[in-house]
């Protein structure tokens, strides 16, 4: 494997306390090394900005939910085809691109690792197959466990050690990397009769458990197992006016344990007496400031088209009733649900503008960028292709104020954006929220930084005043020590690697799980685990800490 010296660039590597230092970055055999010989390829990065490869901690790029959206929206991609070339497979783009296009476009943005944030364990084979067809990036997926009837039964029995074993068993069975809880208990209620839970103390009908118990039991299990990524929470009451109470309640429930909160923007709402949406972003940021064990990604809304896709079926039903043209629902036995509604965020809409403003508040009010990470919850708040624009909103106050001026003023006046919030993110802070922070939170020790031993995933940008243009068109993207993007063009393809995690568990848990499976699933226990090497391997397995 050839060696590369990226020479003379301005390096932002916050995980190693390097903030804009002009230095060389050397790569060999897929890793960052201290030095390379004179034979190494030399990339002249003088005047350029050198960052670790981007790490997206929360997106929806593969699996039955994403594929259902593709089938639902053929017209959405018709205007955005990608031709095959000698190098590239063909495909279609739009907000929910086909797999190859997803990989290519993430790479063109300088991203090298992406998390699929919500996979039904029962569909693991499908998720893995799609990820195998998503090139250029390393990838990992989180399995949905917040509405799992088998776990509900173990929680009801207060079988804490069995829950821990079961979580580890499920990761082993699916190739998953981490655990996601979506509207704990609420999806099960929706699948029963269109119900939901409205507080974390509502009982899940028929199971004798509450969302709080689910959070404590599974969040606690993930914490005790020492999985590389803490429990990843999509809290109850997403999108509901006043849901900040539920979010804070959820955070307090997980107090003392490590936890990551997904798309916090959608969970930061207050309500005035008329149930009109208001912002409570400042309270949530304040709570985060006092609780370093909690992190979040923002789930920024970007004006324009989006596709809402979520395991949280009741949310999709609400969007359907708010005028959604197309609506797709799919219920997965024992485990979860799925809803899809195409959506457009309009700057003139009070609610949409407030959502936009709340997302920016979360970014700008936060004191610690390691705690608040960049996401649009792709494609829920907008496509990952809008990340450069979002970065510009954070780095360029004048641009932000111009955009604020185009949005619904009644909404903007209800945010802290109008209170002289003049913060502009630095390049180092952008490197934290798009690289170092997500990698650290995911427990990917070799990602998100440029220290010796790190994966040789590097993005080199022209240092342009227009930060949107800068981040939309990297000069070089290097993945595992190979140049994939040169001057805005893909010049090489890579399969990328799958990451999974592993924790020890008592194999005797199978004796507990098998009868519970037999009563509930229509797939036999013996055939549930994914064993096919073509789907599971190659993978890099990250061991739990304990």
């Amino acid at each position, binding site marked *: 494997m050839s060696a590369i010296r990226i020479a003379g660039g301005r390096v932002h590597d916050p995980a190693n306390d390097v903030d804009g230092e002009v230095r060389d970055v050397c790569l060999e055999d897929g890793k960052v090394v201290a030095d390379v010989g004179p034979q190494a390829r030399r990339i002249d990065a003088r005047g350029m900005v050198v960052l670790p490869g981007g790490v997206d901690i929360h997106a929806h790029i593969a699996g039955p939910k994403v594929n259902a959206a593709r089938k639902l929206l053929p017209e959405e991609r018709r205007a955005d085809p990608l031709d095959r070339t000698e190098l590239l497979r*063909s495909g279609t783009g739009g907000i929910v691109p086909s797999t190859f296009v997803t990989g290519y476009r993430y790479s063109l943005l300088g991203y090298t690792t992406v998390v699929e944030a919500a996979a039904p364990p029962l569909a693991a084979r499908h998720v893995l197959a799609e990820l195998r067809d998503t090139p250029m990036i390393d990838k990992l997926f989180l399995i949905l466990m917040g509405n799992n009837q088998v776990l509900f039964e173990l929680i009801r029995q207060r079988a804490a050690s069995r829950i821990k074993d079961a979580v580890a068993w499920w990761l082993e069975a699916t190739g998953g990397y981490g655990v996601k809880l979506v509207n704990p208990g609420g999806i099960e209620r929706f699948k029963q009769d269109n119900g939901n839970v409205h507080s974390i103390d509502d009982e899940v009908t028929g199971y004798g458990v509450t969302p709080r118990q689910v959070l404590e039991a599974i969040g606690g299990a993930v914490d005790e197992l020492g999985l590389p990524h803490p429990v990843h929470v999509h809290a109850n009451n997403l999108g509901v006016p006043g849901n900040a109470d539920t979010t804070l309640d959820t955070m307090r429930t997980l107090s003392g344990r490590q936890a990551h909160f997904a798309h916090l923007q959608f969970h930061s709402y207050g309500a005035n007496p008329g149930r009109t949406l208001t912002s409570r972003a400042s309270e949530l940021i304040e709570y985060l400031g006092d609780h370093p064990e909690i992190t979040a990604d923002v789930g920024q809304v970007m004006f324009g088209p989006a596709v809402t896709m979520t395991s949280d079926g009741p949310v999709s039903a609400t969007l359907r009733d708010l005028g959604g043209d197309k609506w797709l629902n799919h219920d997965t036995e024992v485990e979860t649900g799925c809803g899809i509604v195409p959506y457009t965020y309009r700057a003139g809409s009070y609610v949409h503008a407030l959502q936009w403003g709340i997302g920016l508040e979360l970014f700008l009010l936060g004191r610690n960028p390691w705690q608040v990470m960049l996401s649009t919850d792709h494609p829920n708040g907008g496509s990952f292709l809008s990340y450069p624009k979002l970065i510009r909103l954070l780095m360029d106050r004048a641009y932000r104020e111009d955009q604020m001026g185009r949005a619904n003023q009644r909404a903007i006046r209800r945010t802290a954006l109008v209170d002289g919030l003049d913060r502009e993110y630095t390049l180092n802070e952008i490197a934290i929220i798009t690289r170092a922070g997500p990698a650290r939170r995911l427990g990917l020790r070799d990602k998100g930084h440029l220290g010796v031993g790190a994966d040789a995933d590097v993005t080199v940008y022209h240092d342009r005043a227009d930060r949107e243009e800068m981040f939309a068109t990297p000069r070089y993207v290097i993945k595992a020590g190979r140049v994939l993007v040169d001057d805005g063009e893909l010049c090489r393809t890579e399969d990328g690697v799958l990451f999974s995690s592993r924790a020890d568990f008592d194999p005797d848990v199978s004796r507990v799980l098998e009868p519970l499976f037999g009563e509930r699933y229509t797939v036999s226990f013996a055939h549930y685990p994914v064993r096919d090497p073509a789907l599971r391997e190659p993978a890099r397995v990250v061991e739990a800490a304990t």
Partner: protein
Amino acid sequence: MPELGPVTCAGCGLLCDDVTVEELGEDLRLRPECRLGARWFSERWWPLADAPAATIDGQPAEIDAALMRAGELLRRARRPQLRGFDGATVEDARAAAALADRIGALVTTGRADGPWPGAPAAPLRGISTATLGEIRDRSRVVVIWREDPETTHPRLLERLGFGSRGAGRVLVVIDDRDTATTARADLRLSWPPERDLDALVTLCDGDVDGLYERLAAVPHAAFVYGSGLTGGAGGQRRALALHELVRAMSHERHVVTLELPRAPGTRSADDVLAWQAGYSERVDFASGHPELVIATEPLDDVDVTLNIESGPGGGLVVGSASEVWIRTARAGVSAAGTVHRLDGVPLTLQAPRPDHAPTAAVLLTRLLAEVER
């Protein structure tokens, strides 16, 4: 010979994975019993005596020679088409899509000689669906609309819990024919097909022969349908009306649908096409990128076809006059693979009687290399 299994049966789209197979002389016994499953295994279980690995123009040939000829045919083709995929595995479909992309082929899933299934209605307004276990454990009323699963998917009613789970569940069958399924109905509605659209529209806000009352009285209901409702002229409109009905009823209760494919179905291939190309069922790569084909009949300018056949004598058939045939392993009997159940659940097919025949996926990958030479 001892019982083998449990294994997954791909005799229909249900993919029952609790099946054991026992050789009894020249016969096979399946447990649980299933006429369709027994036939599916029997047709694939026994080695083909003296069958060549491949033929060229009907004469036995080596696989390498057959691939070379097939590659030549595809290279020269003005308008190649890949078709078949009934029962194809995910692995087969991934390899086929890669080949189609490379040669700019038209891809159509489904049997060429089958009835046109009707243009899909789901992309127009959406759809509500569920896996088998959801319907089994939650639906108090299940409406089977002009399908006969007792014949086409013999274990469907068992797998939906009829006969085992939950007293008081109601099976409604809408069909004017006397079928094995109508014989199982708790409520049979015998109106003719011409009345289907009107019934679907009326049910959105009114009763039709007591059906609405049944549905309105329960918290969870399911519709099972297929080409009996959505095939042929007007099929898309009827399918759309069904999805609109489900959407309208979903405000007050949970309502889902389950589509029955022609056995064993092309769900795996359609899912693969959707993720690789963005479209499913009929995708044309001729322009250099995927385009969704909206047509009711195969395009008539196709000059070379590659048929991916999963029938008893499964193989790849290439050429307008079947110039090349290459035997493939029988997924689910002699080779493993991944398949998607009719409700989307992915499952593994095992290989209870493995042999050395290459899978379609392996051959298609080699064919791609041949085309690229």
